């Protein structure tokens, strides 16, 4: 596998250096840490922090900036950052209004962000958290870790980020975040695994004519494998699963995200989106906004996910609000 790299041990560090070199007008880095923060820090509004393992670019550092996140904590490839690093991020951007952590529901992320929140709370910083779990391929259950957080997280960043910019309180932001999470459902599939540079290996093996349905964004296997079929069949299959869990119905308005996992062409994503539109038209569900592109990737995996967010007036307005980040400008 050929990759443009120097030293696999410094991947995240070097990526962030290059990112600051390119976007120094928007972004800053906490010294010696894999933490990206906004150049113009908030003063009296709630600060939002997200993060997790790297390998999902532009998430999460690409969503730092006005109207979205205040800090992104960038762990090693596919590994949650340590609690100490999350704690440093909290200290770097905390305001008197407090800090809201946006966590994707993975054991490592939840544990490390919770530890960091405990450390920050001991310093007297107001901290709260929301945990995104939009992946309907995984069963939600109180006896297990529950559903994973995947591409739907980007809608949370955008909507809660816009509200934070408007001056919502910490409590209001947590409630809004939970509302977005309740209303966003995602499912993905992959055709080929990703190459994980830190291990020097593919994340899984799959036959030439097979696809994995319902996989997560770290190459962790999905619900099952089957022979590859047409885009139309697969998109409908994912949407059927999503609509078992989504409460969006006739006359509702939704936002759609067709998200590439890193190595899928825009050609394919637009083809997939054509079926999404047809599927929603048939059910007379109105599409308020469609995002097609690479928003939450899995290094260089071939595959995509579909997210459906059922909207209300508040979410619509916030989705339309201005944002100025590397990964997302105004929608």
């Amino acid at each position, binding site marked *: 596998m050929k990759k443009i790299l120097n030293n696999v041990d410094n991947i995240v560090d070097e990526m962030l250096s290059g990112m600051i070199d390119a976007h120094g007008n928007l972004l800053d880095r906490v010294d010696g840490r894999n933490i990206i923060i906004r150049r113009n820090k908030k003063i009296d509004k709630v600060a939002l922090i997200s993060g997790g393992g790297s390998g999902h670019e532009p998430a999460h550092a690409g969503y730092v900036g006005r109207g979205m996140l205040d800090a992104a904590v960038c762990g090693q490839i596919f590994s*949650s950052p*340590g609690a100490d690093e999350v704690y440093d991020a909290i200290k770097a951007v905390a305001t008197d209004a407090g800090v809201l952590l946006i966590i994707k529901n993975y054991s490592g992320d939840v*544990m490390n962000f919770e530890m960091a929140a405990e450390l920050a709370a001991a310093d007297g910083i107001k901290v709260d958290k929301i945990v995104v779990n939009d992946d309907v391929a995984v069963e939600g259950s109180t006896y297990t870790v529950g559903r994973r957080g995947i591409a739907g997280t980007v809608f949370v960043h955008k909507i809660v980020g816009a509200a934070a910019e408007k001056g919502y309180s910490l409590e209001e932001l947590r409630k809004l975040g939970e509302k977005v999470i309740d209303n966003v459902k995602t499912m993905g599939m992959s055709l080929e695994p990703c190459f994980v540079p830190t291990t020097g290996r593919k994340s899984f093996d799959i036959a030439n004519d097979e696809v994995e349905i319902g996989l997560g964004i770290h190459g962790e296997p999905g619900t099952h494998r089957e022979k590859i079929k047409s885009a139309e069949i697969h998109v409908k299959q994912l949407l059927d699963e999503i609509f078992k869990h989504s409460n969006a119905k006739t006359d509702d308005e939704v936002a759609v995200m067709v998200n590439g996992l890193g190595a899928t062409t825009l050609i394919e994503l637009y083809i997939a989106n054509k079926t999404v539109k047809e599927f929603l038209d048939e059910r007379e569900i109105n599409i308020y906004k469609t995002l097609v592109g690479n928003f939450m990737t899995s290094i260089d995996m071939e595959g995509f996910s579909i997210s459906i967010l059922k909207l209300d007036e508040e979410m619509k307005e916030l989705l339309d609000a201005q944002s100025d980040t590397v990964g997302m400008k105004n929608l």
Partner: protein
Amino acid sequence: MQKIIIELINRIAEVINTNKDYLTDLDRTIGDGDHGVNLNRGFSKIKEDAGGYSNLSDSEISNKIAMTLISNVGGASGALYGTAFMKMAIFLKGKENISKNDIPDIISVGIEGIKMRGKSDVQEKTMLDTLVPFSNYLKKNIQKEEKLNIIFSEALIKAKEGRDSTIDMLAKKGRASYLKERSIGHLDPGAASSYLILETITDVLRGKDI
């Protein structure tokens, strides 16, 4: 105790390094394939720093190990192993002259920390399936034998049984849980890495005939 702790750290770091591909392969089957690499990153760092531990108290060493694991391993395993050492550090604070009879309590405090942080217990296909039977055996039998290495060797058999019992389990925690039934038939990587750690500790005690 510092000298033994430092020797233990060095040996554990070597064993993790030797077995990193084995652990990563286990994780690749039912997780995200980085358990060996991540643990190796943390324990190598500890080994690097261990030279500076000789003037520290047991509690301080434990705390250093905790922070190094948390910041260098990352992921769930960094938080879990890190929490174990952090709880042991708190337990050891102010304690001098640790005796043989304190050992089961120290280990148990660490394992309780893992349960708390992971909101987990045995039978969920995790490192706890290795660690808890080991700890329970130590607690029950610490009085019956003078030599620590003999009790550890016996406890290690329980740990191995516990580790191997994860093969037939359905994962309820960690990334393997997403596989549901497909997680059955595979050894849990966390159960495997914690067995390696316990085995190494036992080996060192045996070598010293403690």
